């Protein structure tokens, strides 16, 4: 392994490591635009110049591999002057429209100009004009004047998705990013080009002009869109609630996890959060009598549900759990089932259309926690369970989250099962055709409104954190189930998600030894 010295600090790096990554290891940041650790080296932006002893001129760090005995200096006068000159070139034709640019506040032209530029502008000629506000596809919009031609987006489409939609056309100062005429940027991962664009050239059609980025707060989370559980940051707008029509979750951004999603997420996950602030959200517990729906207090709903469970024999209760619930919720449910001796349970509802899957990130199972539900012991045959309800053998049918009418189950069978059960309870975040047939509706907090963990298809237990308060009176499922357990006379139930997880880790061998601390930001594998 080559040992080298960077700004006087010694570091040993694996062979093939370039100088940008080697410098990171000693806490030295080498400014760059075109280099991205997830993409090939282009050497396009020329900003990452460093001085290497015994070489006559500054050298680009991205395309220079660390070598034994190399002595690198990143802050010499010559390097600083080179950076200033490169910045000046990058900004020659840049429109400097920061006040109306959505990238402002997270733009590397702004950041590096303040850190490494700060020259007196000398540009006197008319700037070259290029296409502006060009929609490239459903999610991405291009301003070619702001582009610095780093080619990250082009390389992303070539190397990551293999779709090759983008190119750099024409030459010299007329060069511009674009699509083959008549095509669009509509691959399943297109939103990532906005993340990797270091400037305001590619912006997000969903997010732009909604809220300034400096009003956003970021919370570490996990995408609930499929069984992979890509690591994400949830960006929420708490400080300007009057912007973006009350939308609290402004956007989701991928968070690096080398073992799960590397730098990327798919578009389905990225834009799949809109239900959180949707009008269909359930916000108060309610009771339905025929057509009439009455809002009730939590205490009332909980004691009614507990009473219904107590009235029924264990064999007359059936539970359709959901693999969209967190491990903590599923463990709370498992405790309730054991407490009452209930055996009719299941969580796998066949989807109406099979989920799409690819060889990259997207998994066909659109639930984030199927493995967790399996390990916690909630496997069961939902078709049998619903058949029992149709045969009027089920008095209490408790459904979590699912809209059974939006599944591969025959609609008539579902309707008959819901009619056949004496009391239908629905717990979920959003109203649907199933919740509309439930006697009791208990509103659940969305994943961004609470703490919890999912177990992804690999067996990796990953934490998601609360980014916003639950809407209305919604509660996490573990909280709802804990209250019902208490009403049923169970011993004290944990008051926090973390404590439920501790119970789970103590009881289920697969989770043995795991804690929220151990899971950290990157997740930990279950024991299998």
């Amino acid at each position: 392994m080559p040992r080298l010295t960077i700004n006087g600090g010694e570091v040993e790096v694996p062979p093939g490591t370039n100088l940008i990554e080697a410098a990171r290891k000693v806490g030295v940041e080498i400014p760059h635009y075109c280099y991205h650790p997830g993409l090939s080296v282009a050497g396009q932006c020329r900003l990452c110049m460093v001085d290497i002893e015994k070489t006559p001129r500054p050298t680009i760090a991205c395309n220079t591999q660390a070598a034994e005995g190399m002595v690198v200096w990143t802050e010499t006068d010559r390097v600083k002057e080179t950076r200033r000159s490169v910045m000046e070139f990058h900004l020659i034709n840049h429109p400097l429209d920061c006040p109306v640019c959505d990238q402002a506040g997270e733009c590397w032209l702004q950041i590096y100009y303040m850190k490494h530029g700060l020259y007196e502008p000398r540009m006197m000629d008319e700037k070259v004009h290029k296409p502006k506000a060009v929609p490239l596809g459903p999610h991405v919009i291009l301003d070619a004047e702001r582009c610095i031609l780093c080619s990250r987006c082009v390389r992303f489409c070539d190397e990551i998705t293999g779709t090759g939609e983008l190119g750099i056309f024409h030459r010299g100062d007329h060069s511009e990013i674009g699509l083959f005429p008549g095509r669009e940027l509509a691959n399943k991962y297109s939103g990532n080009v906005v993340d990797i664009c270091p400037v305001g050239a590619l912006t997000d059609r969903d997010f732009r002009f909604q809220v300034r980025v400096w009003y956003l707060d970021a919370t570490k989370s996990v995408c609930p869109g499929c069984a992979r559980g890509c690591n994400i940051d949830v960006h929420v707008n708490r400080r300007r609630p009057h912007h973006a029509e009350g939308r609290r979750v402004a956007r989701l951004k991928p968070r690096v996890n080398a073992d799960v999603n590397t730098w990327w997420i798919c578009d389905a996950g990225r834009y799949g959060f809109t239900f959180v602030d949707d009008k269909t959200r359930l916000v108060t517990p309610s009771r339905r009598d025929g057509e009439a729906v009455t809002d009730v207090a939590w205490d009332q709903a909980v004691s009614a549900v507990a009473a219904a469970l107590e009235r029924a024999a264990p064999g007359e209760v059936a539970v359709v759990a959901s693999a969209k619930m967190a491990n903590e919720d599923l463990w709370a449910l498992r405790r309730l089932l054991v407490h009452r001796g209930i055996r009719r349970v299941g969580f796998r509802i066949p989807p109406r259309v099979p989920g799409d899957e690819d060889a990259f990130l997207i998994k066909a199972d659109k639930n984030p926690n199927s493995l967790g539900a399996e390990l916690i012991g909630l496997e069961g045959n939902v078709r049998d369970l619903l058949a029992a309800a149709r045969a009027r053998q089920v008095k209490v049918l408790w459904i979590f989250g699912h809209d059974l009418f939006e599944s591969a189950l025959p609609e008539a069978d579902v309707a008959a099962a819901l009619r056949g059960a004496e009391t239908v309870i629905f717990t979920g975040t959003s109203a649907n055709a199933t919740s509309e047939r439930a006697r009791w509706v208990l509103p659940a907090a969305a994943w961004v409104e609470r703490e919890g963990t999912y177990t992804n298809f690999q067996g990796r237990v990953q934490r998601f954190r609360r980014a916003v308060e639950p809407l209305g009176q919604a509660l996490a499922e573990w909280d709802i189930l804990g209250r019902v357990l208490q009403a049923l006379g169970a011993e004290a139930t944990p008051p926090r998600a973390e404590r439920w997880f501790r119970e789970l880790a103590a009881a289920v061998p697969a989770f043995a030894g795991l804690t929220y601390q151990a899971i950290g930001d990157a997740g930990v594998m279950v024991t299998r």
Partner: protein
Amino acid sequence: MSVGNDAPGAWNRPPSGRAGLADPAPRVAFTAEQLAEARRLQSLYPDPRGALLPVLQMAQDAFGYISLPVEEYVAGLFNLSPAHVHEVVTFYTLFFREPKGRHVVAVCHNLSCHLAGAPEIVARLKARLGIEVGETTEDGKVTLQSVECLCACEHAPMMQVDDRYELGLTPEKVDRILEGLR
């Protein structure tokens, strides 16, 4: 958030008169011999993509100009994304992306030729052909271009007509040359 200029397609329609992909275009394909030649050219390079320029030149000769369907066809031969062929075609000025005349007249407008009277030559060509620089005569005979230095300063002013250099031009010589074009 529906801003007017967000409307899909409002900005990225191909310029009128230029064949977009939506337009019905005649199917483009090399003859068997041309295809064999393209494959031979590809075999000359360690990476077949090295043959992209010569094959595009072949395509220009075969189809008259490099239309978008031609770019897509060539991309198919190289297993490349059409966007990458478009990159190459837009980079080089000698690829014509619109139909060109049977003859291409390219007048040098660089320093030596300019001082030696290129503006007069261009003016004569424009007057005789009835077109501006960059245009093609209505009968499709001549495309007029003005270009950078063609490395014949000692014979300024000069121009290139198809593959031939015409040197030491005068307006009268220009007339004779134009009359000689079929």
